[in-house]
């Protein structure tokens, strides 16, 4: 079902997030390409940096607070905000209200309450805000989808990403076993608890390989960097790719 939003071009502000900006620029380019192809315009508030997730989740709460105020300053005039990272969007939705409360500034609390409904994870923006599944993409490869925990349990993406993928022409989408199981990334967890993280990763990689997919995709490059890092170490030839880069594919 297409919502009325699909018919009108929106002004989308892209929150690329710090790690996508630095490590995965191709994902950002793909997001821009898909959104423009759908008739929307994309702007990029230049002062943006990080959502604060790494600090907040590792216990550096005080250090995370200025990142909230920076985000508010940068995006206060945006019509709609899209970000290609489930964990960062979950961070904002789950913790910005708590952070605002912590800052004891009613103005910030009000601004957070006003801005959060305008924030969308990329796939969610397509399936829920725009109400579309077919973005006109072509990607002739065997692909499996990795559901990141934050997308699954915090943003409740459900099968939205899979519906987008199924509509891609030429794709051979195969489901991974234990789709709901964490890949073991968990931010600083991968370093602080390297052994356990590696054991979890081994299970996930086994799942990916069992699908005989060429590409493992998802809505969060941090999980994909973790899974992909192991796939590369083992020279499996399986390639991690953000969902935006598949949806940007053309014939």
């Amino acid at each position, binding site marked *: 079902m297409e919502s009325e939003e699909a018919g009108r071009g929106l002004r989308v502000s892209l929150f690329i997030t710090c790690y996508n900006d*630095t490590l995965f620029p191709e994902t*950002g380019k793909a997001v*821009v390409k898909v959104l423009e192809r759908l008739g929307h315009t994309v702007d990029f508030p230049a002062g943006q940096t990080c959502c604060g997730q790494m600090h907040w989740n590792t216990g550096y709460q005080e250090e995370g607070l200025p990142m909230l105020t920076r985000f508010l300053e940068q995006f206060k005039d945006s019509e709609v905000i899209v970000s290609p990272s489930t964990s960062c969007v979950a961070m904002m939705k789950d913790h910005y209200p708590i952070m605002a409360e912590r800052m004891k500034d009613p103005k910030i609390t009000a601004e957070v309450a006003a801005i959060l409904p305008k924030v969308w994870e990329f796939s969610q923006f397509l399936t829920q805000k725009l109400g579309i599944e077919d973005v006109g993409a072509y990607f002739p490869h065997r692909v499996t989808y990795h559901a990141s925990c934050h997308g*699954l349990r915090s943003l409740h993406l459900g099968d939205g990403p899979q519906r987008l993928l199924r509509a891609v022409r030429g794709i051979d989408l195969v489901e991974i076993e234990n789709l709901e199981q964490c890949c073991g990334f*968990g931010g600083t967890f991968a370093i*602080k608890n390297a052994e356990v993280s590696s054991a*979890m990763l081994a299970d996930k990689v086994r799942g990916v390989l069992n699908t005989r997919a060429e590409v493992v995709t998802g809505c969060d490059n941090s999980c994909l960097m973790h899974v*992909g*890092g192991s796939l590369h170490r083992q020279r499996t030839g399986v390639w991690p790719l953000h969902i935006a880069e598949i949806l940007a594919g053309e014939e």
Partner: protein
Amino acid sequence: MSGAGLDPRTAPKFQVAARRLVGDAQMRKNVRHATNVIQTKRAKVVAEMPDWEDLRESGRQIRRHTLRHLDYYLLQFEKNCTAAGGVVHWARDAEEARQIVIKLVKQSGPQGESPTEIIKIKSMTTEEIQLNQALEEAGVHAYETDLAELIIQLGHDQPSHIVVPALHKNRAQIREIFQREMHLPGSDFSNLGGTPQDLADAARRFLREKFLRVKTAVSGANFLIADTGGVCIVESEGNGRMCLTLPETLISVAGIDKVVPKFSDLEVMLQLLPRSATGERMNPYNSIWTGVDKTAAGDGPRTFHVVLVDNARTKILADEEARQTLQCIRCGACLNACPVYLQTGGHAYGSVYAGPIGAILTPQLMEMHHAQSLPYASSLCGACYEVCPVKIDIPEVLIHLRNKVVKQQSSGLNILANPEVMALKAVARVFRSEAVFRIAQKLGRLAELPLSHKDSNGVGWIDWLPGMLGGWTQVRDLRVMPKQTFRQWFEAREKAGKKGAADGK
């Protein structure tokens, strides 16, 4: 595992214990199999409940409300339990609780003599206060009567799960323990078979003798019922029912968080607990007893004590963000769902409380002085929160406790000894300015240059990182940073008047 108790004060850090345990293939196989079986059963009996989410919400509200008015409900419980013939004792901490129980046990023999043996029903609270060890030192041997606890006790092992304490052992290992350690005059266990029936028969034979002989029992409690003064225990084997009815003296030890306001609250709790804990619609044995029967023909124990244990719980209650920890009804669902527990089993947590609930409860019981690695023993995947029958947001509490750890580690000179604290504080400064962030992106690219090399596709990769970051490159490669950041690309494109399409053509 040695027979010495799991003690957070002396246990190694989670990371250190886990490193050894992930190498234990047999244990990991046992844990994987057992958690998988319980989870599948749970999923089935939860799916058949159309109002499961409403039940969870009711469970949460009952527990939350009780904790808000804990003083009121505890006093109400004391009054009603006393009126029914029970004796209520209050213990500030583990030591005081142990002393009270030892004193009560010693007075419980005929003519006030001390018995040398007692029987016990599985109880996490008595594990928490390390009661068995203290009783042993006081000359009293406690027989665990729950099958899994018996396996742990006979095997000189430690519990690895709060509901299924011997979940890390398989049937062959259990048979071996029984053959080696079960001694009963007139019975020979050396030729014991290995079927579930054989093992259950052996345990029954071994325990029956204790049930019929020993006159003092110690139990825990699942719920204390304020409006009736009753105590409730649910179990699967009937050993509990034996311990609650056959002895002359019954001593129930319970954390002060175990109270529920009304008898009718069990309507919710006894739907949530068995489905979450063992994947059963109802527990095979549900016992509720209220005081003692004073008539001459009276059934059951003649003397009944309840020992209410605080042991840091009021401190947890005072912490607004962490107090939901006390809502826990010890169902163990979060352990079965946890991908970290799946890999390490319970012993890595260095406490009788393992898994996600252990990771938040243990540090708080220790008032944050011990077990500082536990709040980090999670990838924050949220699977625990999803299954918790009383909706404890465990990831949120973990993050809150991490903050407490960081505060302790960055106070005064501690900060200098901790490269992580220094690094994360420095990175936070970077994110406060776009200009500094840009410089950091450039510097990062330079810094990784000597570590990177190209693969056959011409893509740069790093397969070794120094120091803390080495945890990453143990099993994973890292792609080098691309030459151009996204923001540089976007700006160049804007400048060129979007002449090039988004794909940079």
